[in-house]
Structures are given as structure tokens and as C-alpha cells.
């Protein structure tokens, strides 16, 4: 069942890659649509970030002093200045681990 969904998702993804290159002439996509598409990452990824930080495994809101909030803040600061994806992820994880294993344990 999961495999079938993966295949559908794969076909859909391939279509997003192929449509503009092979099927339609490029002028079909108006400048307006192109301008809106520029916002896709900013319009999609916070829907993964926010719940991933503020909502716990049981589907309820976390407390304001949760280590995840601190880890996320560190990641934002490190990411903004380092421009390095891996440094950002590691900084967030390490500060999170520091809090849960050293401070709160």
C-alpha cells in the first residue's frame, strides 16, 4: 500500500520536472505564476517546521521552556550566519541534546 503511494508520488514529482521542459512551451506559464512559485519554499516548509517544534508526539502544544524551542533558535541563528545546511542541523541537534541530556537529566 505504501509502495503504491510512493509510486504515485514519484509519478507526480516526475511530472513537475518534465511538464515545463517537454510538454508545454515556456510562455504558457505567465510571469505572475512564476513570481508566485518563487514563494513555494517559504509557503510550504514552515508547515513542517512549526508543528515539528511546537507540537509534541501526543498532538498537544509544548511548554515555552521546551528544549526544542531553544534548539530551533540556535539553528536559526547558526543557519542565518553560516549559510551552511549541515552546520545548522548539527547546531540545533547538539544544543537540543545538551539540554535534554545534561541540563534536564
Amino acid at each position, binding site marked *: 500500500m505504501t509502495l503504491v503511494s510512493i509510486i504515485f508520488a514519484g509519478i507526480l514529482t516526475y511530472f513537475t520536472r518534465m511538464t*515545463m521542459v517537454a510538454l508545454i512551451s515556456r510562455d504558457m506559464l505567465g510571469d505572475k505564476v*512564476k513570481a508566485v512559485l518563487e514563494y513555494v519554499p517559504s509557503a510550504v516548509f*514552515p*508547515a513542517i517546521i512549526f508543528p515539528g517544534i511546537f507540537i509534541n508526539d501526543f498532538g498537544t502544544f509544548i511548554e515555552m521552556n521546551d528544549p526544542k524551542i531553544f534548539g530551533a533558535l540556535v539553528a*536559526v541563528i547558526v543557519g542565518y550566519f553560516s549559510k551552511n545546511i549541515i552546520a545548522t542541523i548539527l547546531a540545533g541537534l547538539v544544543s537540543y541534546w545538551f539540554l535534554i541530556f545534561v541540563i534536564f537529566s
Partner: protein
Amino acid sequence: MLDISPHMLSVIPFGIICGAIGVELGFNPYLVYAMSFIIFGGASQIVFLQLLSGGASSFVAITSVGIINSRHLLYGAVLSEYLDKLSLIKKLLISYVIVDQGFAESNKFFKKNRSEEYLHYHLIGTGCTMWVCWQIATLSGIILGSFVPEELGLKFAIPLTFIAIVVQDLKKIDHVIVMITCGLSSLLFFEAPFKSYIIISPVIALFVASLLLRLKK
């Protein structure tokens, strides 16, 4: 190869994380790997698994993959100018390896070398390099992931990964507004059935984005 090599530094660990998270979320390792081959899109693969493991319907999971990957439409629209002369078969094959990093580098290269005839080989080169890296990295992640203890809370790497992807756009105020709109609506609609918040929030945020564009003019 050379143009794309800096991106390996981020793609390989990202692939490892992606594979490891898939196993951590409790999926069959073969399925986690099959995604790298069939979908071949890092962020969307993580979201897909996360949604399914959280009880989303397949329809919602597939739709969100489509939304996340709709950015390829933009890449395709930009690249098609340079790929116009290729045969349909070549276009269909080349499309499979269009990825974010490959697009970024090849687009730079195309702009500099407009007149050359064999431009598309650059895109094939960047795309295939990324493809090989991605396959090896996710496989290693799947193997490593089976050793990572659950207490580490590796799931937290998911929001961190996406913070890393969008953080540079915090410089632009319009993007910040769009991000906050999306983030707040995702919390507001979190209880909506079938995890549909993952579709509702981007739609609201994109609507706000189009309003912003109108205001800018």
C-alpha cells in the same frame, strides 16, 4: 562535476539524515530506499514518510509531495529555453535528474555560456552526480539509522532540516510574512482531518504571497 561538488557536502549528510529518519519512523528499509529511486526529492521524501507515520491519508501525503515539488515547474520553465532543441526523448530523460542544486549551478553555467551547443551535458552532469550521491547517502542513512537509539530524538532533525533550507529567506520581509502565515496556519489547522494542514497552510500562504506581489507593483 566541479560546479556541483560544494553541494555534495550538504546533499550527502542530508541523504543520510533522510534515510535514517525513514527507518526511525518505523518504515521498511526497502521502501525508504525505493523512494530515493522513485521520487528522488529529499525534502518531499521526509515529509511523505512523516505524514504517513503520523496517520495522514495517502492522498494527503501524495498531494503534499506534489506541492513541495511544484517548484520544479519553475526550474523547468527557466531551463526550457536552453533545452528547446533537444528531442522529446532526451527532454523526458533529462527531466528526471533536475534537482535544486543541479538547477542552480547549471542555470549559472547556461547564462555564462549561452552560445555553446552542448549545454545540456552540464545539466546531465550535475543531475547525475547528485543522483548518485543521493542514492549512496540515503542507503548509508538507512543502514546507520538502524543503530541510532530512539532517545536521541532524531525526529527533531526534520524541522531543523527545513529551517536550514529556508533560513536565508528571512532576509526578505515578504518571505518572512509568507513563512509566518504558513507556520501559524499549520498550528491553527493542525487538528484538521487527514493531516490536511500540510496542504491548507501552503495554499493560504501562497494566497498571501500573491497579495504581496500585487501590493509591490
